[in-house]
């Protein structure tokens, strides 16, 4: 009984460690705000208000949380397979571009056909963007951290080229403004809005479902078992007859497809066109989100909500107390540092528990 209680206590404790780390980071932020000559109380009130203070705020938070969740799920899968996917940004961009291209250039005027196909196209594009590093890793042992980062640059410049050249909105040329963006997508490719006039759309539901699917895949199926086995011990996996390179590549491909889908949903559900900076740092913040959620697809759900809130609330904070946006980035960075440090702390604790029996 006591041991059960203790294990429950330990589990809860490990779960709230990231939360504690966040509070600690916010506490450190107090000093930064003081140094900037701002009122910390007012600032954090604005942050909270902006993130969770009203129905509207919560909806905004959920909208931001959706791509974070999808990227986070992808990062979970990759990490579990022992590979690190830093390529979320690029995968979002190509996912967005691919789904927009499909929506703009394939003349099938049916929602039921177009929306699934557009989303699949975005996943495929993301999968390719994750697959290139995956296959390079599998075949040649090239470090996937480097290649995924490089693929980000390629995606950014590809996007710059397409948005200024082949895919630019014809209106922009007519008007002479030449803003780097695509034309508005046809309406039949829009995801259904759940709470007009906000941009909340069915993509969020899809993301939540996929979190569940990823959880089942990772922990209840043999494919997920193999991915996790490869991630924990390549030697033992090889001995057990699991094709290690294949599952490493697969982990990156699946991770890439999730990020690609995030791009697709952002386009079909929120923006309805692709413009520059469509990825909006979701690719990097998604990594943090996944880490925050203990690299567990279901844990990533609340983590995405929290980070979405920080992104939205950060905007509000910035406007209300007039701090530079760098402050928000710094705050997010500190939270990341603290969360990662807390992870090490809780790993040590569990090791100690193991030693002490």
């Amino acid at each position: 009984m006591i041991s059960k209680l203790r294990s429950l206590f330990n589990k809860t404790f490990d779960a709230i460690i990231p939360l504690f780390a966040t509070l600690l980071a916010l506490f450190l932020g107090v000093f930064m705000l003081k140094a900037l000559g701002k009122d910390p109380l007012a600032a954090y009130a604005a942050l909270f208000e902006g993130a969770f203070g009203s129905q509207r705020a919560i909806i905004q938070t959920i909208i931001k949380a959706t791509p974070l969740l999808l990227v986070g799920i992808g990062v979970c899968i990759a990490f579990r397979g022992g590979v690190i996917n830093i390529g979320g940004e690029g995968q979002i961009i190509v996912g967005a571009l691919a789904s927009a291209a499909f929506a703009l250039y394939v003349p099938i005027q049916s929602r039921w056909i177009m929306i699934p196909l557009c989303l699949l196209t975005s996943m495929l594009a993301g999968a390719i963007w994750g697959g290139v590093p995956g296959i390079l890793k599998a075949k040649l042992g090239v470090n996937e951290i480097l290649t995924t980062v490089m693929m980000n640059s390629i995606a950014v410049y590809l996007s710059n080229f397409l948005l200024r050249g082949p895919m630019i909105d014809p209106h922009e040329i007519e008007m002479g403004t030449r803003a780097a963006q695509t034309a508005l997508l046809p309406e039949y490719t829009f995801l259904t809005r759940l709470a007009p006039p906000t941009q909340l759309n069915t993509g969020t539901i899809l993301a939540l479902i996929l979190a569940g699917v990823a959880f089942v895949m990772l922990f209840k199926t043999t494919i997920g078992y193999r991915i996790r086995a490869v991630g924990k011990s390549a030697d033992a996996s090889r001995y057990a007859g699991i094709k290690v390179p294949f599952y490493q590549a697969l982990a990156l491909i699946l991770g890439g497809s999730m990020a690609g889908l995030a791009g697709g949903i952002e386009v079909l559900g929120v923006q309805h066109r692709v413009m520059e900076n469509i990825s909006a740092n979701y690719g990097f913040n998604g990594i943090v989100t996944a880490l925050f959620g203990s690299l567990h697809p279901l844990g990533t759900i609340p983590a995405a909500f929290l980070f979405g809130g920080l992104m939205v609330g950060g905007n509000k904070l910035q406007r209300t107390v007039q701090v530079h946006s760098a402050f928000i980035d710094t705050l997010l960075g500190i939270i990341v540092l603290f969360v990662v440090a807390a992870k090490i702390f809780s790993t040590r604790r569990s090791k100690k528990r193991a030693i002490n029996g």
Partner: protein
Amino acid sequence: MAEKRITYPKSDHIKKLQMIDITKRFPGVLANDRVNLEVNEGEILALLGENGAGKSTLMKQLYGLYTPDSGQILINGKEVVFHSPTDAINAGIGMIHQHFMLVSNLTVVENVALGLKSSRAPFLDLKVVERRMMDICDTYNLKLDPKRYIWELAVGEQQRVEIVKALYRGADLLILDEPTAVLTPQEVDEFFVILKKMAEAMHSLIFISHKLNEVIEISDRVTVLRDGCSVGSVKNENITKTDLAEKMVGRPVVLQYDRSPLNRREVRLKVEDLYVPNDWDEDKVCGVSLEIHGGEILGLAGVSGNGQRELAQALSGLRAASKGKIYLDGVDVTKAAPYEHNLAGQSYIPEERNKEGIIKDFVITENFILEDHDKEPYSKNSIFNFKNIDRETQRAVDAFAVKTPNLKTMVKNLSGGNVQKLILARELSRKPRVLIAAQPTRGVDIGASEYIHLRLLEQRDLGMATLLISEDLDEIRALSDRIAVIFDGRIVGIVDGPSATSEMLGLMMAGVPLEEAQQKK
């Protein structure tokens, strides 16, 4: 340059070390219960006990890694308290861990100097270190080249570096944690010579072990720990292995097994003129031919590094043979992948069990299904059936007496013996017709070893063909129906198990052909 290097303040020479009524409690475990231990200068004390008996905990308290809950440590009659290893080192205590603490891409002398203040700071004074180090080596007859890199050294040499490191830091009393576990028989002999030399030079040595032969051979006195208590401290005169084993395990232990008569069946595994390269493309196995029948255990004896590892890997599909054939039940499996060997009814207990045999961060059930996770009853259409997995795992865990709190325990939290029992449980539950067992009881305590041996014999009687690869001659002789000796990648000879003597096998392990070895006998 003068010898002005400051190392640690030299303390009084340790004439007598006593640990009195040491008690150490961890949550839920009484690791040491009023343990007493005493060692005098020039004495080799063996600390004997099974895994989990509290040997390491006791020594960690002596080395300042833990502090005792109660009890005293006395040096030359005066009480000392160690809060950290630095305190222990300053008092003249050194510890050689089972897993060496060396930096592999630094040289020997750089490793010795590591962490010490340089006399020419901020510059290194490796010349001075080297000179002093070589003095120590000469004194104790330790053969070491200071300029070599650690990664170039054999395990035995690395151990010598650890010893020199400890002596360099002024250690009077050396704690050696299972020092022979990683050594070949030859290296063990050399190592014992070094130990005797150090004892002659009035060093005190505490030798942690669970190998009875070695304890009897080297120690002056033996202290036995069981379940955290000291169950006796005896002078090493006229004590027998049986006595020690009984003290250690707490019940009479079978050191020799009654084997039922050999019931040889058809050939299960056949190896023909096999050549296997190592990672650098040099053939480590050169023309091995073997036939193993069902119902038979074929022991493969040999000094480590003579091709056993490569042979085992080739036989299980983890390493490609460059020439020759392997037949499993008459089917050519030379080029088969590991899972095809599994499917064909072959199991493999890998030599490096913690690396290849299990996934430390997986729980027991997940490890149990490692090879067969994609087969019924564990999964169907890629979806796991956790009820079946739990049931089968529980059955195997019970059948093989794996000690664990529950099935959801991470395997990294199991002791070495229990990990090996789990692997054995997994491999034998698959009802293999052929088993390749590489070093199945290395680093496993007597109780668990005995258990593993009995299970292997039981499977032999049921018709399994076993290739037992071991460096432990006692193990080979106790279990094998036939013994093949490998030297330099070749089979020197195959002899009948019951008639083989240690001397003969020893000669063959050194490469002397069978006929000659028999004549010398």
